[in-house]
């Protein structure tokens, strides 16, 4: 899609600004993992991985590391000093039980009520797979969704109701796209920030659900987020 938009790095930086120092954070597979790479080093953040890690560190140097020390995306990682290992049941207790402060998830669709669809599309012939998506979506204290505003074909992903199978209903707190930062509120979707050069009408055209705009919409400047 042409026109003003944030880069992936800008989007990840914008999400990172909303993660407070001291938070226990689970980053979903895919685009959300970029957030961990751009969080300010001034913040102390403890990353959780569903397969039983708190205090997860960055990838090891090539050829080093423990082949069984992997993250949820099955990529090699490290453990920071102070980190801990635990078993799966405890790990999902942390997720479902509301002990994780923030999760950043990818999304196929988000509805005006904060319903999230991010595990299955309507494609046929592929076996379904869910992993930890549902446990994380219902359990984390704050659910942030980082996704493109529309599909590659230009179809809106922010909709009155999701058409793909739901992961969880009413769980999303905030949506970050290349065009805007949008809060899910009891009164519907409220645009807090809008990319510079895009009009409110143009944003609404690319969004399936009705948007309202905050009194003080902040401008997102590409390259300066």
């Amino acid at each position: 899609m042409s026109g003003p938009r944030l880069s992936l790095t800008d989007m990840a930086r914008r999400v990172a600004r909303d993660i407070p120092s001291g938070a226990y954070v689970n980053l979903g597979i895919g685009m959300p993992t970029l957030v961990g790479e751009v969080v300010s080093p001034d913040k102390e953040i403890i990353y959780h991985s569903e397969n039983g890690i708190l205090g997860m560190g960055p990838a090891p140097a090539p050829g080093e590391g423990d082949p069984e020390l992997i993250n949820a995306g099955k990529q090699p990682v490290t453990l920071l000093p102070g980190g801990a290992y635990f078993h799966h049941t405890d790990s999902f207790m942390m997720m479902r039980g509301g002990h994780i402060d923030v999760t950043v998830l990818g999304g196929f669709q988000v509805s005006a009520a904060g319903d999230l669809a991010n595990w299955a599309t309507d494609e046929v012939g592929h076996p379904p797979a869910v992993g930890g998506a549902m446990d994380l979506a219902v359990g984390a204290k704050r659910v942030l969704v980082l996704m493109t505003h529309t599909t590659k074909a230009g179809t809106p992903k922010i909709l009155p109701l999701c058409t793909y199978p739901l992961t969880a209903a009413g769980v999303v707190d905030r949506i970050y796209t290349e065009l805007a930062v949008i809060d899910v509120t009891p009164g519907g979707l409220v645009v807090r920030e809008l990319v510079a050069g895009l009009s409110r009408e143009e944003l609404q055209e690319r969004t399936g659900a009705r948007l309202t705009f905050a009194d003080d919409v902040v401008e997102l400047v590409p390259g300066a987020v």
Partner: protein
Amino acid sequence: MIDKRVGSLPEAVAGIGDGATVLVGGFGNSGIPVELVHALLDEGARDLTLVTNNAGSRETDVAALLREHRVRKIICSYPRSSGSIWFEERYRAGEIELELVPQGTLSERMRAAGAGLGGFFTPAGADSLLAEGKEVRIINGRRHVFEEPLHGDVALIKARKADRWGNLVYSTAARNFGPTMATAATTTVVQVREFVELGDLDPECIVTPGIFVDRVVRVEGS
């Protein structure tokens, strides 16, 4: 004298019968009891129900059981990962039943079995297709779905060290489903890298007490 150590992989998997429900530890390629699964393949049991997070990769472990038509049903959270060619082949051909379970529910259902509980209500999946046909109850204003305990005839898991009582410690993130699966099966079989003497494992740091373990076998370099 209690001695849960066995001398060979065939002894470790002896007696697993046709139609058994087998819990297999591991997440991705981390913590998979590869040699035990291959021993089960050699042992020959058929018509198995496998409970495992992923559906194997390429030609090894769970994928080998699928390839050799040993599996009737798989209970799994994420069967579709890179290299899970044999699962996809058998699934498309309609030769295998899939019960898809959210990952935390999969683990908690085994915990419930190990803990002697009759199941639990969870919000995970309660708004989704995976709740279809199950009891749903509003608890504290939120939808929860009832999930039943998931018991295994056998658990095959991997740990780092064991003593002859079957006390276990694990290795980094390879721990994953092991401690829960050990509690949830009638017979728990563990492959370890190393045997140690009683008292060598710090009692403050034993992760799985031997009460949950029936057989341990040493696999060098695993």
